[in-house]
């Protein structure tokens, strides 16, 4: 394959993956899936019933794997009927988004009605206003993941079939959304009445912010908050993962011989090394700038 075409396809994959990462994170934030979910689940028990969407669809990796695999399967079936690629990927993503919508709905209804003794109500307007954006984000995630998988199959001649690649990328985007994205929601948005930097005291568990600047806080507001930083940063993380992991084997193509294969391994190791050093420098400079905490200083003195 012409290296220039390879690089172009890789750039497209990276761009699609960036969008996938961002939409994946915002999708999970609307429903407070993953880590923040434990506090949303706990809140009514600590007598803080709320109007936050409790979307408990397992962890992010399985739930994203589900929608991407369903999208990939439906698209693959349609491609077997010689339907145009764009239409096949779109219909596949649509079916996936609909299935994801039913999972989100049953999770919200089920979790809230299982908290009867804590007086947690099932608010149908929360369901009506939040489920469509959840489905919209899941459509974008599935579509972009299918674009990545389709490019891998057609341009890079990957031996795996489309549904299996979509499954693997679904798990990956969910894992990166969970590890990168959650950090920028969770405690930050749920515990804003707690002083910054004080950590999460056990006594504050479940005491989530339920009231907004105006009216009651909804999960849409959490998504708005995350769209400013958490979502984009997840997108960049996932886009970089896809781009850099493909870049080393596109530039140093292992199919050209063992020497190029080893060069790609060395390039990969170098990238990891540079990132470790960069992260370390950033952590040290952040500590110098913002820490240590006041209490720590007093204790030290």
């Amino acid at each position, binding site marked *: 394959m012409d290296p220039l075409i390879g690089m172009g396809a890789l750039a497209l994959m990276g761009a699609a993956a960036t969008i996938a990462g961002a939409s994946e994170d915002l999708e999970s934030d609307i429903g407070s899936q993953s880590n923040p979910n434990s506090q949303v689940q706990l809140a009514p028990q600590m007598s803080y019933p709320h109007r936050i969407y409790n979307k408990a669809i397992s962890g992010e990796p399985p*739930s994203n794997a589900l929608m991407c695999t369903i999208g990939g399967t439906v698209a693959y079936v349609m491609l077997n009927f010689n339907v145009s690629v764009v239409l096949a990927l779109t219909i596949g993503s649509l079916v996936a988004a609909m299935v994801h919508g039913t999972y989100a709905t049953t999770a919200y209804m089920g979790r809230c009605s299982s908290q009867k003794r804590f007086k947690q109500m099932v608010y149908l307007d929360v369901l009506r206003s939040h489920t469509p954006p959840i489905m919209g984000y899941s459509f974008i995630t599935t579509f972009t993941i299918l674009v990545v998988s389709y490019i891998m199959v057609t341009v890079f001649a990957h031996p795996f079939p489309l549904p299996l690649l979509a499954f693997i990328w679904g798990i990956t985007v969910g894992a990166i959304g969970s590890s990168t994205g959650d950090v920028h929601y969770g405690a930050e948005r749920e515990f804003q009445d707690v002083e910054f930097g004080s950590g999460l005291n056990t006594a504050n568990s479940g005491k989530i912010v339920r009231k907004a600047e105006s009216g009651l806080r909804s999960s849409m507001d959490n998504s708005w908050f995350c769209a400013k930083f958490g979502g984009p940063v997840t997108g960049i993380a996932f886009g970089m993962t896809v781009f850099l992991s493909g870049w080393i084997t596109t530039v140093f193509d292992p199919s050209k011989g063992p020497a190029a294969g080893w060069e790609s391994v060395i390039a990969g190791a170098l990238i990891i090394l540079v990132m470790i050093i960069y992260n370390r420098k950033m952590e040290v400079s952040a500590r110098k700038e913002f820490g240590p905490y006041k209490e720590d200083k007093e204790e030290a003195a």
Partner: protein
Amino acid sequence: MSAGGSGEAHAAIPQNQLIAFGIIGGLIGIYAAFFLSNVAGGVFSFMGALGAICATIWGAAAVRRVASYGLGTGVPSIGMLALGMGVVAAMFGLAVAEGFGLAIAGPLIALVVASIIGLLIGIFANKVLRMNIPVMEQSMTEIAASGTILIIGLSVAMTGTFLFDVVLEDVITTGYIAVIFIAGGMALLHPFNANLGPDEKQDRTLYNALEKGAIAMIIAGIVALSVQNASVGMVTVLIGIFLWYYGFTGFYARVKRDAFKVVGTGLLPSEEELE
């Protein structure tokens, strides 16, 4: 008290009945689809998916039973574990049966192998990892066995047969096994996970299992459109949509029954209400 708690979940339907329902229903569905595969162009392959739904309801009840000992975040893991054991057992059973020229016994061998794997993992979890959950051994056996029936049932719905060489070609190499794995696994784990809480009720959870099993059936039908033919696929999809609707309305009726209140809109409960 069933969830987040620490004890045997209250069950209106005894587990033994659900075991019988899952095994008998599952095997009848799989074998009916297999033997009727030459009738009417194979439209009866939807029976395999019905068998898979029986197994889903059984498996979800087993997940509920073991996870109510306070597994919490372990619920999704146990669903994935179920299908992991199931894939190994199902492929082993079908391949060995075909190897010995006993292809017809494939699902039965897979079921036995799955039970053995499940039992071993259950013993391992209790004795070595010291999880000390009283129903662990039995539940892991049940979960593995139901996962296996689920996988074979959905494969039959897709291909119309459980002969290993056909399954290998039409389900494994095409990658459809991925959707069986994840849609089946989620159908097992989601019902209890989605209804987790102290006021969880068995029938609501099981209606949710029916609804999620029907979604897996619809997807299997879509695959059958291309693996078999349009009429087979459409029959499976339509029956799946009907079962989904039945499952969802049944679930919603129980949500309205069980919830503190189901309101169109409203503020948070007042201080007096919370007292």
